């Protein structure tokens, strides 16, 4: 029976153990280096402890094996027998430790992977949060500036609107769905003769319309078309007078297209309409003037012949009183005809530059009053003078101006009939470079249906034979010849004149010539 020598086994065992010690120490060195480089890396930590366990295993086992040979060689085999179980036990512990470490590593790796996933999610959320935070910070930084800019823009816009609203010379108004005024600018308040906006707030717009049919048409058009453009209407002022207005309005509607109110601008055309009427009247007067001039020229010659022959006949019939009386009647009536014809010629005649000169209007008025005041006082009519001192002279025909004054004063006299006051005011408007003469009376006033016709030729309210209806027409023509204009107000528009008890006021405006522009006291 042949056996196998164990010496090769011992050799491999001994040198293998020595190599295991060297290699395990080297491995632990590298593992430690790895852990130091990256202490948070779980894999390196695992490898480090794996190496430590293997080092412990290698040392205990290899040292044990080597000691075994040494003790046997030194003839102390029982010592090895004592140490051997400890070496085996240590190896058992090391195996178990390595196995536990391996499974533990797997679990830790799983946990770490989950933590890493969570960390990635958190990092993504954090990045999004940072982005949102940056946007918020940017918004917060610029918010104040943006609010400031927006506020400034709104303020500018509001100022524009406010300036337009308050500064407009036209009436701007707002109404609710029921047509009640809920906002009106100061020009509108003034136009309608009120003092404060509160007096008009809540006031129904239809109540301001003179013609109810006009309101119905206005409201119907606003509702159907959504707007009203250049709608001409007469509005009632607080004092009962009328305003001729042109309204442009827009309906305010909600999302369901239901009318919630309206906003509009009303332009006062009263003055424009009056000027238009006067222009028409002037055209009428011009036509009539041309006609009258032709007629007067043709009639004037036969009248002169009739008058001449009548006077010759009077000389022939001085001895026959009844014929002479008849001829004098013919002469008188012929002279009346000539006067009418002369008036017609004056009415139609253009002024001659040669008759104009520097005229003190106050003096002119005083000269006229000196003539007519006595007859006025006979009827208990007194003249109230309010003549502004230091008026500049105007360049005009004094005789014709006196004729105008006489006509207006006579007109006032006839209006008052008996017992009353005639007021005369003069005023210089430096801004417009105009002189204004106001002649008012305390008579019954002019009915509205008549007031537009009083300057028409041959229009008179006096009885037959008492007036020719040419006085105001002639006066109107003379003032026009001087570049001025005449307006009549009944009742007067000026509160001071109303306070003086006047019921009618004629405003005569005469422009200054350039060389007469400076008042005397300057």
């Amino acid at each position: 029976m042949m056996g196998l020598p164990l010496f090769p086994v011992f050799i491999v065992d001994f040198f293998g153990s020595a190599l295991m010690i060297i290699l395990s120490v080297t491995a632990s060195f590298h593992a430690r280096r790895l852990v130091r480089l990256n202490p948070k890396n779980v894999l390196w930590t695992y490898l480090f402890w794996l190496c430590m366990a293997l080092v412990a295993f290698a040392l205990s086992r290899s040292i044990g094996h080597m000691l075994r040979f040494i003790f046997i060689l030194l003839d102390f085999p029982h010592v090895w027998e004592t140490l051997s179980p400890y070496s085996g036990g240590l190896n058992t512990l090391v195996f178990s430790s390595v196995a536990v470490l391996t499974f533990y590593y797997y679990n830790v790796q799983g946990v770490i992977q989950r933590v890493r996933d969570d960390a990635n999610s958190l990092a993504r959320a954090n990045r999004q949060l940072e982005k949102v935070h940056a946007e918020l910070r940017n918004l917060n930084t610029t918010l104040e500036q943006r609010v400031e800019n927006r506020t400034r823009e709104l303020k500018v816009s509001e100022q524009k609107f406010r300036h337009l609203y308050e500064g407009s010379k036209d009436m701007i108004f707002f109404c609710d769905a029921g047509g009640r005024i809920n906002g009106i600018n100061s020009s509108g308040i003034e136009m309608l003769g009120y003092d404060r906006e509160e007096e008009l707030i809540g006031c129904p717009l239809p109540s301001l319309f003179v013609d109810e049919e006009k309101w119905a048409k206005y409201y119907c058009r606003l509702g159907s078309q959504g707007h009203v453009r250049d709608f001409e209407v007469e509005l009632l002022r607080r004092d009962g007078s009328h305003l001729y207005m042109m309204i442009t309005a827009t309906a305010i509607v909600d999302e369901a297209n239901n009318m919630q109110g309206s906003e509009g601008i009303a332009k006062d055309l009263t003055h424009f309409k009056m000027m238009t009427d006067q222009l028409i009247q002037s055209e009428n007067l011009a036509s009539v003037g041309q006609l009258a001039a032709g007629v007067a020229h043709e009639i004037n010659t036969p009248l002169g012949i009739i008058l001449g022959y009548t006077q010759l006949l009077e000389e022939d019939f001085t001895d026959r009183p009844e014929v002479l009386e008849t001829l004098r009647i013919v002469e008188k009536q012929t002279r009346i005809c000539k006067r009418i014809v002369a008036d017609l010629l004056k009415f139609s005649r253009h002024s001659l530059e040669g008759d104009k000169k520097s005229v003190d209007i106050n003096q002119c008025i005083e000269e006229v009053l000196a003539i007519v005041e006595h007859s006025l006082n006979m009827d208990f009519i007194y003249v109230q003078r309010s003549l502004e001192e230091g008026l500049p002279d105007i360049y005009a025909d004094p005789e014709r101006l006196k004729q105008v004054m006489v006509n207006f004063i006579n007109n006032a006299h006839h209006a008052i009939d008996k017992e009353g006051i005639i007021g005369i005011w003069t005023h210089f408007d430096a801004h417009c470079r105009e002189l204004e003469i106001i002649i008012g009376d305390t008579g019954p006033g002019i009915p509205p249906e008549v007031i537009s016709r009083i300057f028409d030729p041959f229009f008179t309210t006096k009885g037959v034979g008492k007036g020719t209806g040419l006085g105001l027409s002639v006066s109107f023509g003379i003032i026009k010849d001087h570049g001025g204009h005449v307006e009549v107000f009944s009742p007067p528009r000026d509160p001071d004149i109303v306070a003086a008890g006047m019921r009618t006021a004629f405003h005569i405006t005469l422009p200054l010539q350039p060389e007469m522009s400076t008042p005397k006291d300057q």
Partner: protein
Amino acid sequence: MLTCKAAPQLSNISTVQHNSHSGIFLSRVFCLRSFFLLLCWLTVFPQDARAVQVHGSPEGLYVHQMAHLFFAAALVFLLLLIHYRPIGKGKAWGYFKLSLFFFLLWNIDTFGVHWLTLRLPEGAIISRGSLMEHQLAGPLTLERLAYYFGRLDHLFCVPGMWFLVLSLRHFSVQSEKQENSAENAS
């Protein structure tokens, strides 16, 4: 006597305290009372202690063998884990897998040697004289030959450790490079 006194007190307390609080308190008192009664019973009627058990001599070997199996299972687990869910690539990981493989072979080898050692009859190992004279007695059956060559287990564990060293060396070199590049980048 103590329990007799405690009972009326407990009943009084239970009427004024919340149910859960009184329940915890009661259970603690009952545990203490049971422990006290058991202590008294063991003192009066003593018997043999049963907590400490004496183990026979094979137990150490069995534990050692089980540890080998446990270690082998861990290595197989780690190898499969790295194979199916690779943590990284490169030479270092290749060396690491080789290392694990050799340690697995070593485990199998040593487990087998321990098992064969138990099966060897007395006198199979002749350890008379010097180490040079020690030998495995015949007849050289397959089992004895397996034992003989199985004793050369360092042929597995030394390469395993060698590959582990190579793996760690590569890991540390790579890690140093990454550390340096990170420093340069910062």
